[in-house]
């Protein structure tokens, strides 16, 4: 247990011409849970909550990803958190929900480059090709639960709980080197 565990810092990055992994700047992340009539909540939030698991929506700088039948991840600039909180408080009495700030819980890796999808196959048993651009999923990467956002064919974001980040980053960095050697 005293073996040095790979170093990791919040500005860690790795990569080559084929794929790069960088750590995204901190942002607001809010876990929203609600069910039943969602209209009033959507009205208060000023955004539509996508109903299909994996679907995303966007309003201004706030993004929403549906993670479960009654679960959404909201993310945006840190400043939006109080606004969202206030909107939820407003309708809580009549339309109860759970809004939990998890901004501090996770870190986001941005994975981009021509081999970005291939890099994910090192640890993700899902068929990455079937994750459509503009969607997202919670899945598993090398034993750690992660949320994948596919922003473009060759660009993903991966949300990982902090404590798993060193382990996950270590494999991503190894993969970057491996893929670069493969391309060479």
């Amino acid at each position: 247990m005293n073996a040095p565990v790979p170093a990791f810092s919040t500005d860690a990055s790795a990569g080559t011409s084929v794929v790069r992994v960088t750590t995204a700047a901190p942002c607001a992340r809010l876990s929203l849970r609600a069910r039943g009539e969602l209209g009033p909540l959507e009205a208060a939030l000023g955004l539509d909550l996508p109903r299909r698991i994996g679907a995303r929506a966007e309003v201004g700088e706030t993004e929403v990803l549906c993670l479960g039948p009654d679960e959404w991840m909201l993310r945006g600039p840190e400043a939006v958190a109080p606004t969202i909180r206030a909107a939820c408080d407003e309708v809580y009495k009549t339309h109860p929900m759970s809004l939990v700030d998890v901004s501090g819980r996770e870190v986001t890796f941005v994975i981009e480059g021509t081999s970005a999808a291939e890099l994910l196959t090192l640890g993700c048993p899902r068929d990455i090709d079937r994750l459509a651009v503009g969607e997202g999923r919670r899945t598993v990467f090398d034993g750690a639960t992660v949320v994948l956002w596919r922003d473009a064919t060759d660009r993903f974001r991966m949300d990982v709980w902090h404590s798993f980040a060193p382990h996950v980053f270590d494999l991503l960095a190894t993969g970057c080197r491996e893929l670069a050697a493969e391309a060479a």
Partner: protein
Amino acid sequence: MLLIHCPYCDETLPEAEFTYAGQAHVVRAQDPSSQDDGQWEDFLFMRENARGPHYERWRHFHGCGRFFNAVRDTVSDKFLTTYKAGDARPDLSSLLEGQE
């Protein structure tokens, strides 16, 4: 590694995203205090050991997080169907017909 259809996500996905959660349709009584010792013992401990189709629960742990039910053949390891928690137990004979 099996492929499992999550009835909530409506996707067929690798087993690594799921966790097994024991036999399905084991109902916890509304008022456990009304259960005699034998009934409570059955609820806690008595499980089928099916050779063939088995009603069981899975959780899409690294996914939508939902518990759901499945019928899996313990001999072939094939899933005959999966369905949402709370849905009625599907009719086995029609599932088996669909197989052949």
